[in-house]
């Protein structure tokens, strides 16, 4: 079937083009946007050195690592409700390396990433063969089992009391400014890694696997192997978040790594947009910052927040990135009409 044959048969050749998922041709626009963002992220604490804002900013950067790494898993077509549990694994592994084994902080962070990644490597090949809702449930249960291990394995994890008195990563990063920039730098590296993966041929293969797994497999994509690789990497990054988080909060609460927190990471992705890296980043800001800035009673805050989630999901089923896509289409449509 070709265009010329279609014309012969008087079938109208469709003219609607769709901007491709790999975003060719928008590189220049993107680079300047990233630059502006970078300047903003580095610059605002110098203009507004408010410790509260800095804490919120640090928390946003921390959660962004988790949301972005979960995004990698989602792009392969799986939704994991165990991601917060992997953050927890990384947190405990890092803290125990530093406090019990006396290792330097960097090694601790690596141990955290390694522990989460190793666990992912063990369960990945089994669990990633499941599709859709079954994967969701199994990760949900696994996350709960891991959380129960945190609470029950008292000699190692301190049980439900958690671990207190965790030292900061380094004397330099013990001020709110220091913490923020430190976390921001590592978060930028982690998210940058995610961006590199997604914009490379790996990302193309991931999207192909998600959209039509059998077609992709028959084109040579090693589906299970790639899913496991991405899963291990993503959980490793979650472990990094864990290590950073523990030394930022200076305590570990074992109940902070359950299915509710994993679901939060999923919400950040769905509400921001599941199929573009900007999605989880927008979602993280929304989910972490929004409640903090609703002044007033804490409970009312949460009620309003819950309602706003309903509204966003109802109005923008594709997530908040839709706002970007829709405005682009409107602009393109307006430009088109001008000619």
């Amino acid at each position, binding site marked *: 079937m070709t265009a010329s044959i279609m014309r012969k048969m008087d079938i109208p050749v469709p003219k609607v083009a769709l901007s491709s998922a790999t975003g060719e041709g928008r590189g220049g626009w993107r680079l300047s946007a990233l630059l502006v963002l970078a300047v903003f992220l580095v610059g605002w604490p110098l203009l507004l050195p408010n410790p509260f804002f800095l804490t919120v900013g640090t928390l946003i950067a921390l959660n962004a690592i988790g949301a972005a790494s979960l995004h990698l898993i989602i792009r392969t077509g799986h939704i994991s409700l165990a991601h917060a549990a992997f953050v927890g694994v990384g947190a405990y592994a890092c803290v125990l390396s530093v406090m019990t084994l006396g290792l330097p902080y960097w090694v601790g962070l690596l141990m955290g990433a390694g522990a989460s990644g190793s666990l992912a490597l063990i369960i990945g090949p089994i669990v990633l063969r499941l599709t859709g*809702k*079954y994967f969701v449930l199994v990760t949900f249960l*696994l996350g709960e*089992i891991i959380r*129960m291990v945190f609470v029950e394995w008292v000699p190692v994890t301190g049980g439900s009391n958690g671990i207190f008195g965790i030292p900061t990563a380094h004397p330099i990063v013990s001020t709110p400014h220091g913490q923020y920039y430190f976390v921001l730098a590592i978060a930028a590296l982690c998210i940058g890694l995610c961006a590199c993966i997604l914009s490379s041929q790996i990302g193309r293969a991931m999207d192909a696997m998600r959209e039509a797994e059998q077609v992709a497999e028959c084109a040579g994509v090693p589906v299970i192997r790639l899913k496991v690789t991405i899963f291990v990497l993503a959980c490793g990054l979650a472990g990094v978040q864990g290590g950073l988080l523990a030394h930022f909060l200076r305590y570990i609460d074992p109940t902070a790594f359950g299915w509710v927190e994993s679901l939060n990471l999923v919400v950040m992705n*769905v509400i921001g947009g599941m199929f573009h890296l900007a999605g989880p980043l927008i979602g993280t800001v929304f989910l972490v910052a929004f409640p903090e800035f609703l002044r007033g009673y804490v409970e*009312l805050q949460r*009620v309003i927040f819950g309602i706003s989630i*309903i509204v966003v*999901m109802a109005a923008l089923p594709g997530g908040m990135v839709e706002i970007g896509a829709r405005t682009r289409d409107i602009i393109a449509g307006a430009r088109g009409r001008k000619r």
Partner: protein
Amino acid sequence: MFTSAILAQVILNGVCLSAIYVLVALGFTLLFGIMKIVNFAHGAFAMLGGYALYYLYAEFRLPYPAAILLASVGVAACALVLEPLVFRWFYQKMFQSMIGLLGLNMAIVFTGVIVFDVYERSIPPVFSGVVRLGPLIAPTDRLLIVGIAAAVLAAFWAFMTRTRYGLAMRAAAQDVETAETQGIDTRVIYLLALFISIFMAALAGGIYAQTYALSPFMGDRPLMVAFIVVILGGMGSIPGAALGGILFGFAESFLSTFYGSAVSSFVSFGVVIALLIVRPWGLLGTPE
């Protein structure tokens, strides 16, 4: 340890738990099967049912049967009010429904915190006596609860198998599009499913509140169990949800009495995981 008295207790406890879990799971699976929504607010409605019962029975002193019935109907009516505002936007959209209804859950729970405050309450028992059935010493209250749950479940079963609307709902739970082409009015079915589903959740919440305690966050656990039970039984499968609820209830009763709640959770979750790896479509679901 395994005396007949204790075993009898475990069984009765299992029946109670199963009743709660089956009520919650049936509603959850109905909403998923027919409208493809994952109702993360299900626990919140159970919680509302608990508070409604508390106010009607303990505060306004209505006779118990009226109180529990009115409480459940009232909460189900609230859900109908919320239908055009919330639920309708998410029909047949699984992921969007998950997140949107999670937002609803948050809104309801924290409204509950504002209105009811955080402290736990308990509902006074209806009867304070006990009944002796052979080796079993059962609080009359418990038997009453089991009786009510059984009656509601029997009514549900009768409705689903004997009435026109019930059969229409089962057809829709299997395949909504085909049901539509058969001339079934999906608007009515959706509203009916929502009403029945939330009615049962609210009833379960009332029972839960009577058996344990009442707080705005009590819905989390029933929600989690509903989620597990429904997937265990096969999503969208009504008999599967019932079977899953019974298995889970008895397993939990047995394991937590003899081995503690941690072991109970570990084992049940582990078994469900193993089952899902081997048989992902659940006990009674259909492989796709």
